[in-house]
């Protein structure tokens, strides 16, 4: 009798179990194929960077160099001292400017969202409305005039030193976009969802705004901060349009990685140096991957310690 009772549910389970298993197999097969295809370009890139020049000409369809044709020559060519190793400058420029951009964005968003949510002052709501409206305006409208402003202020300041010029140009790389509305509103929405009683009780305990901000709000906001960090990091690292405009005519050592690598697609001569192009690309990818590996572990710790539930 008992077995009979347990028989029935067993049957229904196994039916959906079978469907699930079928689906899992289908999904496994599809995803496996997709993953192989996805990895292809990257494998090609890495493999080609080790191919000797001779192999590049004679074995173009191989993902990996043929036997005996492995070489580090391409890496050496741009890493060695006499090629003035521009890649390091590019990576350096990209890294510090992106990190600064991200840091400023997060700080500004935290501060401004806090002010908009937890402080009261006249015109607060109107300002938020204005921001929502302005979000619809695409940034492309401002590119040409911003370029004109950039040049005009440079004229006014009459910067003569190299360091000054560098600082000025990177000011214009880092700052635009720090006040991105989307990110700030994201933060604001998160703050709006924090239960007011936490803040109110802290206030009634006599905590200053600053204390509330640092001790309560910021730790809670970890996940949104992560989100904004991730949104802005790749946006800034990858930006092509605006840096291209303001770097034209400047020393190559000042470029960012994304602009520097366009040399390989722009000029046919550089593009013909396949091995070097691939090696440089692989090398340029490494820091991003490393940065993400590092921040990932910190994020898991951070999230676990604040106890934010799913």
């Amino acid at each position: 009798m008992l077995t009979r009772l347990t028989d029935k549910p067993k049957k229904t389970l196994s039916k959906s179990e079978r469907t699930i298993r079928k689906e899992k197999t289908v999904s496994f097969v599809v995803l496996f194929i997709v993953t192989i295809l996805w990895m292809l370009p990257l494998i090609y890139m890495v493999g080609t960077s080790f191919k000797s020049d001779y192999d590049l000409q004679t074995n173009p369809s191989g993902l990996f160099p043929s036997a005996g044709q492995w070489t580090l020559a391409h890496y050496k060519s741009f890493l060695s001292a006499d090629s003035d190793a521009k890649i390091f400058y590019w990576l350096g420029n990209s890294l510090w400017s992106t990190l600064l951009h991200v840091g400023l964005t997060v700080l500004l968003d935290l501060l401004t969202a806090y002010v908009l949510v937890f402080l009261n002052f006249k015109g607060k709501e109107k300002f938020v409305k204005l921001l929502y409206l302005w979000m619809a305006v695409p940034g492309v409208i401002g590119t040409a005039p911003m370029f004109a402003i950039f040049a005009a202020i440079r004229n006014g300041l009459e910067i003569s030193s190299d360091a000054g010029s560098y600082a000025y140009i990177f000011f214009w790389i880092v700052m635009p976009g720090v006040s991105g509305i989307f990110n700030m509103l994201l933060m604001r929405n998160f703050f709006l969802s924090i239960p007011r009683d936490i803040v109110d009780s802290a206030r009634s305990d006599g905590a200053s705004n600053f204390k509330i901000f640092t001790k309560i709000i910021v730790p809670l906001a970890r996940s949104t901060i992560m989100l904004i960090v991730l949104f802005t990091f790749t946006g800034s690292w990858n930006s092509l349009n605006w840096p291209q405009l303001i770097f034209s005519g400047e020393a190559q050592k000042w470029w960012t990685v994304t602009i520097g690598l366009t040399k390989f697609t722009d000029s046919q001569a550089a593009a013909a140096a396949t091995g070097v192009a691939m090696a440089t690309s692989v090398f340029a990818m490494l820091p991003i991957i490393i940065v993400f590996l590092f921040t990932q572990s910190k994020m898991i710790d951070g999230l676990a310690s604040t106890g934010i539930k799913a």
Partner: protein
Amino acid sequence: MKKIKWIALLCVTILCLTFVFAGCIDPNAGNDDDDDKVITEKWWEDTGELSFNSEGKVKYSNITIKLATVVSGEDKDTFKSIIDDFNREYKGRIAIDSEDIGQANFESTVAQRISTKNKAPDLIMSHQKGHKYFVENKIIQPFSKDLMEQSKISIDMNDYSAGLSRYSSLGYKDELFSIPCDAQSMVVFYNKTLLEEIGKELPTNHQELLDVCQAFVERKGTSPIAWPAANQNNHWYNYVFTTAIMQNGGKLYDESTKKADWTSEPNKTAMTKAIQSIRDLVASEGVVKYAPFNDKTSDDSSQLEFVDNKALFYVYFPWRIESLESLYKTRNNVQDVTDIIGTTSVANWFAMDSSSADAGKIFVDSHFFAMSKLVTDVSKKAAIMEFIKWFTQRTDVCKKWASTGHITACKLVGDTDEYKNDAYCQRYLNNFYPDIDNLVSMGLTSHYNTVLSHIKTLGYETLSNTAADIESKLASIQKSFNDEIAMNK
């Protein structure tokens, strides 16, 4: 409330109407493009006074001149060494601080720097094509005739190549804005042994060129002409295609309106002939073409064709000579190439009418010197003129500069035996540029970018598809050309 609304509506309507009326006026009417303008308001200054030494020459004390030069390729080192020579000779008096800026961004970079007064150079040495653009945007100032008299440093345009010096006024009557220095274009290296093998002589006109090519194809089965792929970096369009147009009497743009006039005679026939002459080479009958068009994707592979004795002619820039000769020596295991590699020019190659006066024209780009508008001290101005005179009129300097393939634009030097008999000139330059009066350059248009990009489109459209109708292409590309110029005044 209603009254306010009506007033507001009225204001808005008036505003809109002003916008519409403003929009109907052509802002460029009255912007005449003639080349005989007179300067009404100076945009530069003169400060200070000249001091003279006991010999009556101008005394300079530690003047530094920032020079921005477009020379940044294989000829860079020779240029640097020439600058070092000058600095040594004028030690304590004038020092040249030279910076090279690549050709791609030169005009925009220098214009920006001078107009924002940020790292602005004092002296510019760049391709002639950009100089009209400089003067139109008030980036450069003229060399004052008064100052020349005062300082006794005179530079007379009659001493320079006629073809180039006529651009020196940049369209301003009696003013001297730019001083020509040298010229360079694509030149021809040929294989003497192979030429003998097919029993031919160097072609002196287009038909002979075709005959030589045909003989080579029949004998060797490979393309006789190796030149860089047209899509490489625009050099082919900027030098070879333009030369073909010049040799057939064509005009890139009408000199008075600056617009392209390719569809009215006689220019239409000229342009058509030019395209036809190139088609004779890239679309010749038979499986093996006389010359490739877009087939090769690398600059170096065309060089390889010549060096591996598969091509008879190699068309490239003269500063390739050294690497070409050493590459030939290595690959063919020979010690001396003087009897193997010969030199000639593209003159008469494309002219369909070999008796025309234009047949020998070569389109070059020429380095010109110009002075930034920001220089005010007259001693500095005199120093600049002294340097220019030294660079362009000293025979030993010109000989050194010639060793990288730049022929002098100054007749005072070019006509001397010393220059003509210089080993390098004898072997190369005299053959590369048989007549410096026949050198033509972009001329007096500030829209050099539009000219070059449309010439490229014209060349590409008519040569990659050799059955394309030339007349309609001329018309459509000309329209695009003129529209762009109209927008950009």
